[in-house]
């Protein structure tokens, strides 16, 4: 049985670009090996943290959406804990609403990347507003 999961981890900012890439690929390989199927991947890059973690005020965020066996999550999380480069991580099981939301979010992002979104997005927003007004 497989479930959908979403995992976000934060790498220390002290690593060089190659080192961060290497750390990311390490976890991707781990996922592939451990019955995981990567569905989506997102790198948020360097971000400022809302509060300092291990005396660092910024971190490199990376998000992976994958499908795997529930038993694999434990292995993944122990691997996170063992790795010193990871300062924070979060793994979340996705329910159907979350999955559909993630897909919509991806479509929106793909649209913005193409440059068509500026046209598509305003078209969507007013429609929502119109729905609002009759109720109010």
């Amino acid at each position, binding site marked *: 049985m497989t479930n959908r999961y979403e995992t*976000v981890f*934060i790498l220390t900012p002290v690593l060089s670009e190659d080192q961060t890439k290497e750390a990311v690929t390490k976890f991707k390989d781990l996922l592939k090996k451990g019955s995981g199927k990567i569905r989506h991947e997102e790198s948020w890059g360097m971000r400022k*943290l*809302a*509060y300092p*973690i291990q005396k660092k005020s910024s*971190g490199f*965020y990376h*998000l992976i959406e994958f499908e795997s066996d529930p038993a694999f999550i434990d292995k993944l999380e122990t691997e996170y804990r063992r790795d010193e480069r990871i300062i*924070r991580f*979060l793994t*979340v099981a996705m*329910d159907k*609403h*979350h999955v*559909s*939301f993630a897909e919509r*979010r991806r479509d929106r992002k793909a649209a913005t990347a193409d440059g068509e979104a500026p046209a598509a997005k305003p078209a969507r927003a007013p429609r*929502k507003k119109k*729905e*609002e007004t009759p*109720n109010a």
Partner: protein
Amino acid sequence: MSETTATAAPAAAPATGGGGGLNNEIRYLTPISIETTKEKYCRFKKMGITYIDYKDADFLLRFVNEQGKILPRRLTGTSLKFQKKVSQAVKRSRHLALMPYVADMMK
């Protein structure tokens, strides 16, 4: 003329005084405007939102006061079902340092 008014006044006074025993009733010239609070509603139910994303810290900022505390349902009007999801999302967001645990002057 003066007699009629004189008789009318004592007659009226016992009637009002007799009703409550004390004549404490305050009368206003203009009716007091009672503040009618706007009907609260759950924005998630209304907008048909089914999932609250923990990654969107800007959105979650609406459900948090300026110290970073989660606002109660009685203020935001969120239904219980979605309040649980909001609080879960805020807590996840805090864990990932997308939102602060404690702050002042957040907004």
